């Protein structure tokens, strides 16, 4: 599997600067076009692909197919050998092994994790799908462990900026946390302290969930996308007044006039906050396979291998070779042009990472045969 990244790069988390005299000031802080991530080459000169990528605001954690984790700031973490899953926040790195979960403080140079939890490998429910762990989930900062009732049958969980979304084994969706931007999907703006079911989706089986800074997205079994929360940069794919006003101002300035109060769009309905889930059509042509949310943008992969992005784009995180935002989904043409089949996507707060399959169109499973550059 090859990975391409685009968007915020001020910490070289996508592409490192080649200049040996790099001083941190001349690097390309934002990449608007998909850039391939270099695979990890270990001591023996063997090249390993990434099986998983996670990104925080300033870092990227990559899980290699040989079971090591690389942090874009610190390099390979030797204590990560055998790691199965990884999660990263601005303050901590979470590593999941077969028999334990560890949280490492990224600011400290300690040789041991700041928190550890053992996993009962004999138990049936020992599966780890970070941030889900047996019995609950791991937050991005202390206190790490939050318990979840076993009745919930949690299958996957996503952490938003200030809310949480959970998918159960039966396909139901629960949300809790802050709700001031409609991100809980219960129709109001009030917070919820305990998991509350999203009633509007009742009766429809969901297959995956994702959370951004202030928005939530989920995919149904049938491949439909549902969105709710804040739409200030068009991250829900619904008409955004702020984007329309900004693009008007730009055109007016190019024409040499200052923008007057525009009344041409007064009939159009703009949505700033969507407090109930809304069915969202990414493309009428095919279904959505997987979706990921950044802070204020959204990226979706279709069953036909295309990547669509929408929302905040000022750091190039939409991948359309520009720094504009968009409230309409657009296909990232780069992959089509290169005849690459997108199979997965992971968003950092201000960037996007797309996983691309090899020529056969298959995504190798973990652990994968190492790619040997010496032709053996």
């Amino acid at each position, binding site marked *: 599997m090859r990975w391409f990244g685009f968007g915020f790069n001020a910490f070289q988390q996508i592409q490192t600067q080649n200049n040996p005299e790099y001083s941190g000031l001349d690097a390309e802080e934002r990449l608007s076009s998909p850039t391939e991530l270099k695979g990890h080459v270990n001591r023996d000169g063997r090249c390993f692909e990434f099986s998983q990528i996670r990104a925080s605001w300033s870092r990227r954690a990559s899980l290699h197919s040989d079971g090591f984790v690389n942090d874009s700031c610190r390099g390979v973490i030797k204590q990560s050998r055998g790691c199965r899953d990884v999660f990263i926040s601005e303050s901590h790195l979470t590593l999941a092994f077969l028999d334990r979960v560890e949280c490492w403080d990224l600011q400290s140079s300690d040789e041991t994790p700041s928190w550890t939890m053992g996993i009962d490998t004999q138990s049936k429910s020992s599966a780890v799908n970070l941030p889900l762990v047996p019995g609950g989930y791991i937050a991005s900062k202390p206190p790490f462990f939050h318990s979840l009732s076993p009745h919930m049958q949690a299958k996957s969980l996503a952490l938003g900026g*200030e809310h949480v979304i959970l998918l159960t084994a039966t396909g139901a969706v629960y949300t809790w946390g802050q709700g001031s931007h409609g991100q809980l999907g219960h129709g109001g703006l009030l917070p919820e302290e305990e998991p509350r079911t999203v009633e509007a989706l009742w009766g429809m089986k969901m297959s995956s969930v994702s959370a951004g800074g202030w928005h939530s997205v989920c995919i149904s079994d049938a491949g439909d996308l549902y969105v709710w929360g804040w739409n200030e940069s068009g991250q829900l794919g619904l008409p955004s007044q702020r984007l329309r006003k900004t693009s008007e101002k730009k055109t007016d300035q190019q024409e040499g006039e200052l923008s007057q109060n525009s009344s041409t769009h007064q009939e159009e309905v703009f949505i700033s906050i969507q407090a109930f889930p809304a069915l969202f059509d990414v493309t009428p042509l095919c279904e959505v396979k997987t979706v990921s949310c950044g802070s204020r943008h959204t990226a979706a992969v279709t069953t036909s291998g295309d990547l669509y992005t929408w929302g905040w784009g000022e750091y190039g995180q939409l991948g359309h070779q520009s720094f504009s935002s968009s409230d309409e989904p657009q296909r990232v043409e780069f992959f089509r042009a290169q005849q690459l089949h997108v199979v997965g996507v992971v968003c950092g707060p201000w960037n996007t990472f797309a996983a691309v399959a090899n020529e056969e169109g298959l995504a190798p499973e973990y652990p994968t045969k190492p790619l040997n550059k010496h032709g053996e």
Partner: protein
Amino acid sequence: MSSLGSKILSILPADEEQFPLQFSDKVEPSVVEVLRRCRKQLYGNAACASRRLNAQIILDVSWERLNTGTWRHVDKEWRRVYSYGCLFKVAALCRENPSQQEILEAVRTCDMGLLMGAAIMDDILQVLVRILQNEISKTSKDEEKSVEGVAKKLKTEGPRSPSIREEKAVPRIKCPSLESFSTNYLLPLKPVILEGIIDHWPALNNHPWSIEYLRSVAGFRTVPVEVGSRYTDENWSQTLLTVNEFIDRYILNEDGGKSRGYLAQHQLFDQIPELKEDIRIPDYCCLGEGDEDDITINAWFGPAGTVSPLHQDPQQNFLAQVSRSFFTIPLQTCTNPNAELFPEFSKAPYLECVLEPGDVLFIPVKHWHYVRSLQVSFSVSFWWS
């Protein structure tokens, strides 16, 4: 570097070492790293685009924190970071021969920092905006609308002052002593209109507050404006406009008067200290227990028909009616609250009044009131305890 760029550098610390960047551990090291890059570029020769981008990174990351959780709980450190972002952006905008547009954007940036950020480096954004405003006065060719033209436009056909029934009128008293005000109105919590107590305000004398005056002092400053008929309505919203835009759009109704805009409940005098010099805190506030610093001063500026729906204030309120001397600009209090929603209210004892320029209405704490402007109006309120 332009002369403006030099002026700005002259108010900043002499070099990198003397430029403070101290934050609590609420601000992540990665963010401090970008701030350090901005600081380095400030004293170096980096390209303009790169400076602006690094400043924008700081603005964007702190903006996200400012929108996380409730405003009350936003850590002050993040508001400081936001102000630093504004400072670096202004420095980048003004370094090399800024256009008029770039200077206006710099003023707007300072205002965003003053409105949403927290004071840094001895309130440097306040100093910066003053330098920038001087630059605008020097370079701009104002097409000042003639005084007569303005007067004509403002002669809106507002309703005539309604007649107040004597038995329902708020009593009026001219320059009472502190003692008599305290005994007869403050302690028994009775509303009263104080006459003659703000006659000495520059805003009513040598610096009369007119549209032209407000434009000259604050025309390019950005302020929060409430749009919509009243804040209890569904389509009510807040937006940011320059004072010029607010006056053009909502006072002079140049967009055809489709919606109502109200510069309401805004601490304008903290943002624009030049205007604070035109008003004085009423002496009667010394009867309260708090310090002068604890008094909240708000500006209320809007066209005819702005409404503050029925509400209470948590503190004592002096509502001073200012405004240009061309027109009488009355306010009306406590008439006809919605009879359907509050049927009992119409039976409750109530008082009404119309405020003229120079009047100061005392609204006792917890006293319900409803305010509607009959014509273009500028008032200043003092909340004290």
